């Protein structure tokens, strides 16, 4: 019996961390898994630090609490590294994925001695190249799928295409850009 995977998202209000967590729950659900996707609510406003969570796996999910010992952490905004203890409780066997323009050598000293996997992606670069605007959530979603190995990349891409077709039924012109953002992020995250 494989334990379900737990993921914690750190972002700022308005960046789409909650949306990304819900999209991840969606795409995992469509591959037959049990999912939970939920934000931690408070007096949120644009730019304030926010947290969102996922539990995903083959086991039905009964627990309804926040996640304190995640297997993976996704940081959508690197400026949070100075104000939020993003690696708190993070499993050493897991990993953290950070949206940054910095190198790993520059990032690792900011992680409070975290000993697990560290991955970086320049989501702004990916987003600007594929969408022409800064929407970090698609690149971050692809990055965590790649890093966690939660599902096969081809399955992920085909399910996301279905999901975008549904979500952007009235704006089909943005589907290709979002798919390119996912593909580029899958190859760029390191």
């Amino acid at each position, binding site marked *: 019996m494989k334990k379900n995977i737990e993921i914690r998202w750190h972002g700022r209000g308005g960046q789409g961390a909650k949306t990304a967590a*819900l999209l991840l729950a969606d795409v995992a*659900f469509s591959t037959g898994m049990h*999912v*939970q996707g939920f934000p931690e*609510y408070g007096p949120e406003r644009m730019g304030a630090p926010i947290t969102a969570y996922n539990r995903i796996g083959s086991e039905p999910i*009964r*627990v*309804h609490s926040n996640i304190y010992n995640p297997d993976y952490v996704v940081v959508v905004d690197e400026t949070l590294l100075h104000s939020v203890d993003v690696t708190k409780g993070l499993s050493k066997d897991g990993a953290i994925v950070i949206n940054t323009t910095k190198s790993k050598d520059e990032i690792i000293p900011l992680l409070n001695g975290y000993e697990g996997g560290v991955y970086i992606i320049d989501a702004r670069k990916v987003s600007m190249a594929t969408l022409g605007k800064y929407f970090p959530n698609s690149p971050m979603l692809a990055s965590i799928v790649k890093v966690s190995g939660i599902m096969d990349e081809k399955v992920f891409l085909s399910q996301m295409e279905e999901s975008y077709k549904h979500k952007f039924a009235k704006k089909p012109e943005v589907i290709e850009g979002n798919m390119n953002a996912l593909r580029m992020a899958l190859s760029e995250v390191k």
Partner: protein
Amino acid sequence: MSIRERMSGNEAVAYAIKQINPDVMPAFPITPSTEIPQMVSTFIANGEIDTEFIPVESEHSSMSATMGASAAGARALTATSSCGLAYMWELLYVAASDRLPLVLALVNRALTGPININCDHSDSMGARDAGWIQIYAENNQEAYDNFIQSFRISEHPDVMLPFMACQDGFITSHAVENIELIETDKVKAFVGEYNPENYLLNADMPMAVGPYATSPFYMETKMNQRLAMKNAKKVILDVAAEFEKISGRKYGFFEEYRLDDAEIAIVIMGSAAGTTKDAIDALRAKGIKAGLLKIRVFRPFPGEEIAEALKNVKAVAVLDRAESFSACGGPVGSEVKAAMFDAGVNVKAVNYFYGIGGRDYTVESATEVFEDLMKIADGSMEPENFKYVGLRK
């Protein structure tokens, strides 16, 4: 075949409303229940259902309009949370004494003081004596299932009482999880048409709703409400048995989880029950006989049945997600202990407060309570009333 889906608790309730297609929904938005009227009004705008949506300027008006529609003979409902319920207060009692079978989707949220938008049960617990049926959900699935059963119970001729379908704000209302939906034709066949015996718009039989009751009559009205609440117990079980036939899911007054041979038990309501189940499985793996009694139906209160289910444990902790400031215990704790006393069940019982204003209740929280219970059961710790779970140290 059921429909495998994923949705939040609010989406699940909105979907149930869409399947039922009730006649009238007056509503005023308040976090965290706002999504329910928002989604329903979208269904209406898209022409998917023909419910009459009445935007009002306050919850006092949303409850008044729901009652007016119900008295006129319509199947009516509304949704609210927290201060919204508080603002409906005087009408809650009127709806119950007028015997109006309307449904309120309550998304539980703390009452203000200090301001807080997160979950606790202080809103519905405050309304526990208003004469409404109250049923609580553990997750999105139960929120959906309870809602589908609500009108059948409320509209039953032996009951005719308003119905509060409760779920935990944000914890289930905003969490996207797997769910099994029932086909709309089956839901419609299960819920059926509403054909009230008496209603205001029936010109052939004029009636008065909500008249003045002098002292020689008021008390009998209250006695009749109590009889209806007692009748609701049988109706709730009958409707649950029928619901099992279309869903495969079994419901009763409460759920017992590994309680059969349990020596220590937690009594709890709502989303915290699932978290407690995970703690129980971990303790059972270590040979500790822990169990759970999750109350689903709080009004009518199934006191005799709860006492019977708890009679063989050595120690029980009743967890309250609302204060009553009696300084003796919380609402669920007091009623469970009174029920055990009436039944002659002499089990060591403690009352804890948890999750107030959205304080997170974790597997570790439940485990700490069970660790106390082990000590109380073996006599190494005196039962202490009452304690807090997850209080800042």
